[in-house]
């Protein structure tokens, strides 16, 4: 009887043990993903930081822009800075700051927000006043006079936090990394909005 009872107990616990085992497996699988995502975030921000350092170094060679500037001073400073950066990054190409694995990671992050409870509203917000199919070039000026897409707070919260003067923007379904101080498209990735 004892043996039988033991077997019964063991059989009764089997689903629970199996569930625990599965859960442990999930956790074990999830953990590397989280670590991998964290590593991708670090890799991405490292590239952005290198850009920011270059930006600062080049800006330091220019006469400082007055804190209370005239439009002419603002325009001259922005254009001079953009010219220096464009020249220094002469070989820059799409994907330099958004390598493939980073792109996949960012798509996952954006996708998780869009699949959430406010997903439909967020998608609508991203498409509102979205300039759409405008031609973009990496390491070139953001088209003058083109409105900028509003970035919903949940999307910004899900993406790696950028340094000052660097912003995420959407143009169509492309995620743009914008140097808002120099008015430059640092890089962009396509298909950033999952269907």
């Amino acid at each position, binding site marked *: 009887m004892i043996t039988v009872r033991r077997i019964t107990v063991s059989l009764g616990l089997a689903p629970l043990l199996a569930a625990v085992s599965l859960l442990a497996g999930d956790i074990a699988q999830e953990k590397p993903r989280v670590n991998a995502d964290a590593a991708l975030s670090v890799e991405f921000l490292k590239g952005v930081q290198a850009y920011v350092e270059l930006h600062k170094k080049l800006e330091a060679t220019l006469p400082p822009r007055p804190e209370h500037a005239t*439009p002419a001073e*603002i325009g001259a400073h922005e254009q001079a800075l953009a010219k220096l950066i464009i020249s220094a990054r002469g070989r820059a190409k799409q994907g330099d700051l958004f390598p493939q694995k980073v792109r996949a990671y960012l798509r996952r992050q954006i996708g998780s927000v869009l699949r959430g409870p*406010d997903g439909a509203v967020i998608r609508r917000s991203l498409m509102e006043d979205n300039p759409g199919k405008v031609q973009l070039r990496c390491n070139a000026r953001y088209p003058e*006079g083109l409105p*900028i897409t509003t*970035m919903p*707070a*949940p999307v*910004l919260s899900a993406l790696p936090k950028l340094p000052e003067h660097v912003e995420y923007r959407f143009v169509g379904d492309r995620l743009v990394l914008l140097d808002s101080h120099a008015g430059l498209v640092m890089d962009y990735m396509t298909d950033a909005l999952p269907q």
Partner: protein
Amino acid sequence: MLIPRRHPALALIVCAVSVACLSGTPAVSPALAARQAPPAAAQAPLPLTLPNREDALKFGVMGDFGTGKREQYELGEEMGRVHSQFPFQLMITVGDNLYGGQSPSDFVKKFETPYKALLSAGVKFYASLGNHDSRQQSAYALFNMDGRTYYTFKAPKQDVRFFALYSDYLDPAQLQWLERELQNSREDWKIPYFHHPLYSSGDRHGSDLLKRKVLEPLFLKYGVSVVFAGHDHVYERVMPQQGITHFVVGSSGQLRKGNIDKGTGFTAYANATEQAFLVAEISDDQLFFNAVSRSGKVIDAGVIERRKPE
């Protein structure tokens, strides 16, 4: 029209006396009328209903204006007339300060020239940015942003602090900053202003529910009584929402005629027939306001009582 209290616990009384919709297309265009009319000094005074007290804080609100077109200039002239009668010290902008190009000549054409009378009279502009504005505007001396896209400042009179937000980019850093600043503010009046309206009956955009979700709890928690926004190219005063009165003043240049959704159920007064801006006066616990149209009519007027801590 008396607006009933929506939330008695908040002890807010909004006695918004809405002037009946006086809008209508003038028989003569304002530009022609201005040319035919005698000089401003000799013109009949505007029918403002503000107390115009000596020690009050007087300010204006305008939004979505930087078109460089005739209507913007005509409203600019009207602002000058209002100022000669009601000398407001500062003007806050709720974004879309310059549409299209943002070159030095655009700043002249779309800002400095239409508001020359105000600038010459020493009115200080405190801008916030909209989705059509280059971030570089934050360095423009006449916008008094000191290079920041979001900032706060204490008004020169009365116990008032303004909070200019960059609603286009409400990242965690800005939201943390806002909460810290609201928490630290000891002023009676805390007035946030920004581009995207939390409540709007504008048919083009409407209420921004995502921003409402993150901003409204902070406004409620820290005793905000009134909020100014734009984006929808109409003028609207919204019935108090949980005790807070929201204004949409996206009507100061780029008007979207007739673009009002009458079904939202929260409009206290709306006008999309001609350009308009708002002037207000804070005296102790009261904020008096007049919305003035391009043809010099007071299209909305009233007084808002400050929300007090329970």
